[in-house]
């Protein structure tokens, strides 16, 4: 691996300036995705701008009846947070399914969003919770955040500062289907909220998405209709982890189960 410049900004304002002024720079937080890609040579940034230890990107706090989580707060903090357990137990559940202790100690919510993998385990929870991404310059509803395969609405030089979960995040339920409990990339991830009606999935399309047809049926109180509508909302592929047919079937089965409880 060729050596890449390593830049350690003092604060968010400094990070934004350095990120903007350094062509070909990538933002680094816990490194659980970026360091793999860097070593494999699948990304070749000129510089890394390290956000890991910026105090402004840390912390979990109450906000407007919900909770705000700093972008560089690792999953271990989310798992251990009484506030998150109270406001969005599904996010705790999702964080527990990510890798194992080593990954949970480094991986961050901001990184999961910015990496924008269709299999990102927290992303359906954030979608079902109507979460909002706070950047250095604006707020973006998570529903508008994923614009294409590993593409986001973030502009040039824009960085994620925090994620806000509204009060309704409390009712979100979460389920991940993978090969084993730990260290597994999902075959299907699903998060569901009844009020408001939200059905969000990962690993079933090129982006984490909301199943609008299923949501419309659920909003009418038609659980069976939501399950029936789901296959037209998703476009899963055959890949090394699963098949499109299996993903469609298991997504429907899990949705049915979650709506039965």
């Amino acid at each position: 691996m060729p050596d890449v410049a390593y830049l350690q900004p003092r604060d968010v304002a400094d990070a934004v300036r350095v990120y903007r002024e350094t062509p070909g720079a990538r933002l680094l937080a816990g490194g659980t995705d970026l360091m793999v890609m860097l070593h494999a040579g699948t990304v070749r940034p000129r510089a890394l701008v390290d956000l890991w230890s910026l105090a402004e990107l840390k912390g979990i706090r109450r906000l407007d009846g919900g909770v705000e989580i700093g972008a560089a707060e690792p999953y271990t903090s989310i798992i251990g947070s009484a506030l998150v357990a109270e406001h969005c137990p599904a996010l705790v559940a999702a964080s527990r399914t990510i890798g194992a202790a080593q990954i949970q100690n480094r991986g961050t919510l901001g990184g999961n969003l910015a990496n924008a993998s269709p299999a990102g385990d927290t992303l359906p929870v954030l979608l079902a919770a109507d979460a909002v991404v706070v950047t250095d310059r604006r707020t973006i509803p998570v529903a508008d955040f994923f614009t294409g395969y590993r593409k986001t609405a973030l502009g040039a030089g824009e960085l994620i500062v925090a994620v806000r979960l509204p009060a309704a995040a409390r009712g979100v339920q979460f389920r991940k289907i993978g090969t084993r409990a730990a260290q597994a990339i999902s075959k299907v991830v699903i998060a569901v909220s009844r009020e408001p009606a939200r059905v969000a999935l990962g690993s079933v399309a090129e982006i984490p998405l909301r199943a609008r047809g299923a949501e419309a049926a659920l909003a009418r109180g038609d659980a069976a209709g939501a399950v029936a509508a789901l296959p037209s909302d998703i476009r899963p592929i055959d890949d090394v982890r699963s098949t499109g047919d299996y993903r469609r079937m298991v997504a429907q089965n899990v949705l049915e189960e979650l709506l039965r409880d």
Partner: protein
Amino acid sequence: MRFVLNGLPMTVEAPGSRRLLDVLRETVGLTGTKEGCGEGECGACSVLIDGEVVNSCLVAVGQVAGCNVVTVEGLAAPDGALSSLQQAFIERGAAQCGICTPGMLLAAHALLQQNPRPSEDEVRVGLAGNLCRCTGYTKIIDAVLACRT
């Protein structure tokens, strides 16, 4: 670049973007930390940063400036006496080929520091990020359970 390594202050000349794993093995010369997959799946390169277990293949060395890093070389006492966990691994046959052993020891050490009396399930969860192709895990879990206090 300065940090504390196994209790001793350390200054290394290395680009901040280099993997902590490579700096430990190649710059510092401590080869107890193993590289397995290089992508955060296997846990062979586990080390402790400020008491938390991490995969050193995923950490840029610049990120440990000022931190306390512990590798498998730091588990034994300065006079070479093995820790009770290391001793239990030997006595219970928890090491076979040995590649996963340093990472297993550090993950188990971190677990026991945070939870001195883990249940068997808690041990399994605590070691879920460390893969072993030899032992079938049973002896490893026995060894960790034997070290509950």
